């Protein structure tokens, strides 16, 4: 079978830290990068006799995430997940098990496809181990040192359904999910700092097959790029295995960024028996209808809605690159203000996605009305595109009045008569090329336009010039 006869099936589990002031069950600061073991107390160190008390804001953030992912927000319980590991102070993790706070939602990818969300539940983070020894890694370390500043930091784990079909799909999904999480204000979405962590369940099956293949869980992917690479590598590994007559065994595999390979971390036979049971130190969360509604009402528009609005204003598809860029860079409020001031949406999106995006740090001071004016001048050919870009650049750097900037540059609007004269002049000076163009040879147009551009010192509106050329042809 060729590669195209196989289908990849991918489901992602994404952990996000919540941007609360304090940890999930104690009043210690939830703060990245502090001196080790300085944000600790009896609760998050798991000292004997200590008890957890749930952070209201963490619950609210979880409800925000669930609402943004179209989940049902429901009464929920905490369970204990029991396993021994030194970065876990109680040697159990307080998590949600069979009754999560958010269940059954979906996320729409920019192209409109929906990815199912099985659940988005609350749990606590672990501490961090540093491995001491020559390698600096877990294997071959002499001993390890544990810092519990991160222990008890609130997490939401978003479990996606196996609706993704490629490494690219997975990257797009995580990118979109990250944008949603940031939009809710619940997460900073920093994958590199570890506040967003992704595990992937990957399986393959012959295209068209109804049943899922045996899956492997891939861990340790620290960027979107490594996520895509790891998934593609793993799928290829499974396909090769199956084509050689082997079978895939269910296991957890570790992605090595350096070698670009996955390797067995733990087989199913070693699967831990977590002995989940209801956490007796905590009581159920039963969010009221009013609370859920208030959280939903306070949510800002999500990236998908914003892209739809931009797409409508620009008459583009919601997943068109400039639309995606404008929303990703939070330039859509500028767009809508410019359109309200009379600018053409399509041209405004183009300028935002290019010139404004490339000096993003200045975008905050860009006056939407001045921006609209530049776009309008370009639309009615009072400025050529090149001139418009120059004016916009000046506007971004120092502000001011677009008309005055244009005038200072000597960008006088070229009268149509003058342009027509220039066109006629170029036709007269290049009879051979003109003959070919007039005979239907479109590729000569570039040559002629180049001549017109030179003849006008770059001040010609080239769209207008090509219209004139074509007009002379018939």
């Amino acid at each position, binding site marked *: 079978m060729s590669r195209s006869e196989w289908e990849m099936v991918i489901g992602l589990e994404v952990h996000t830290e919540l941007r609360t*002031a304090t940890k999930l069950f*104690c*009043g210690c600061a939830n703060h990245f990068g502090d001196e080790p073991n300085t944000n600790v107390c009896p609760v998050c160190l798991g000292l004997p006799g200590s008890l957890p008390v749930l952070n209201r804001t*963490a*619950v609210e953030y979880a409800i925000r995430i669930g609402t943004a992912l179209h989940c049902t927000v429901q009464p929920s*319980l905490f369970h204990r997940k029991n396993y021994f590991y030194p970065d876990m102070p109680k040697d159990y993790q307080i998590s949600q098990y069979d009754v999560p706070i958010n269940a059954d939602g979906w996320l729409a990818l920019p192209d409109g496809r929906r990815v199912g969300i099985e659940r988005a539940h609350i749990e606590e983070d672990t501490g961090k*181990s540093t491995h001491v020894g020559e390698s600096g890694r877990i294997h071959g370390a002499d001993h390890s040192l544990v810092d519990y500043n991160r222990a008890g930091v609130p997490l939401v784990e978003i479990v996606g359904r196996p609706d993704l079909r490629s490494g690219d799909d997975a990257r797009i999904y995580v990118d979109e999910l990250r944008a949603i999480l940031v939009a809710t204000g619940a997460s900073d979405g920093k994958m590199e700092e570890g506040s967003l962590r992704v595990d992937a369940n990957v399986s393959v099956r012959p295209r068209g097959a109804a049943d899922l293949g045996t899956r492997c869980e891939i861990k340790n992917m620290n960027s979107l790029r490594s996520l895509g690479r790891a998934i593609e590598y793993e799928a290829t590994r499974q396909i090769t295995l199956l084509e050689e007559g082997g079978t895939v065994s269910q296991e957890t595999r570790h992605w090595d960024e350096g070698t670009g390979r996955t390797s067995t971390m733990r087989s199913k036979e070693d699967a831990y028996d977590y002995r989940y049971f*209801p956490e007796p130190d905590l*009581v159920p969360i039963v969010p009221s209808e009013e609370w859920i509604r208030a959280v939903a009402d306070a949510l800002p528009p999500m990236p998908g809605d914003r892209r739809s609005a931009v797409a409508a204003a620009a008459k583009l598809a919601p997943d068109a690159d400039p639309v995606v860029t404008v929303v990703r860079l939070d330039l859509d409020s500028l767009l809508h203000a410019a359109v309200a001031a009379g600018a053409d949406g399509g041209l405004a999106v183009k300028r935002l996605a290019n010139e404004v995006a490339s000096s993003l740090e200045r975008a905050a001071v860009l006056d939407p009305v001045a921006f609209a004016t530049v776009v309008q001048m370009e639309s009615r050919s009072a400025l050529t595109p090149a001139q418009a870009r120059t004016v916009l650049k000046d506007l971004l750097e120092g502000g001011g009045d677009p008309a005055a900037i244009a005038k200072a540059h000597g960008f006088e609007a070229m009268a149509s008569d003058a342009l027509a004269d220039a066109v006629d002049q170029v036709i007269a000076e290049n009879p051979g090329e003109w003959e070919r163009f007039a005979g239907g040879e479109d590729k000569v147009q570039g040559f002629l336009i180049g001549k017109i551009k030179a003849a006008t010192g770059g001040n010609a509106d080239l769209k207008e010039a090509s219209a004139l050329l074509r007009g002379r042809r018939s």
Partner: protein
Amino acid sequence: MATPISTADVAHVARLARLALSDEELDQFTGQLAAVLAHAADIEALDTAGVPPTAHALPIHNVLRDDVVVAGVDREEVLAQAPAAESGRFRVPRILGEAP
């Protein structure tokens, strides 16, 4: 009724609980656990269809705290209680595998 607990079960459970048992302890614990579980046969046999489990005897929910930072404990006081500490951290023997 479940099959009686075996020494293999007890050895497995000891492993899960991170306890080492001598052969003698293994035999002794197997017998003692079997006796307690045999006593529990009365509830195993009980028809509890439709009975909800009680995890909390309390009828309360939504116990929540405000998201306000409170001073924790002093690191030196905590590390002084640790069997081994180094560079402001808890020192442990080498870890052989990633967290499950």
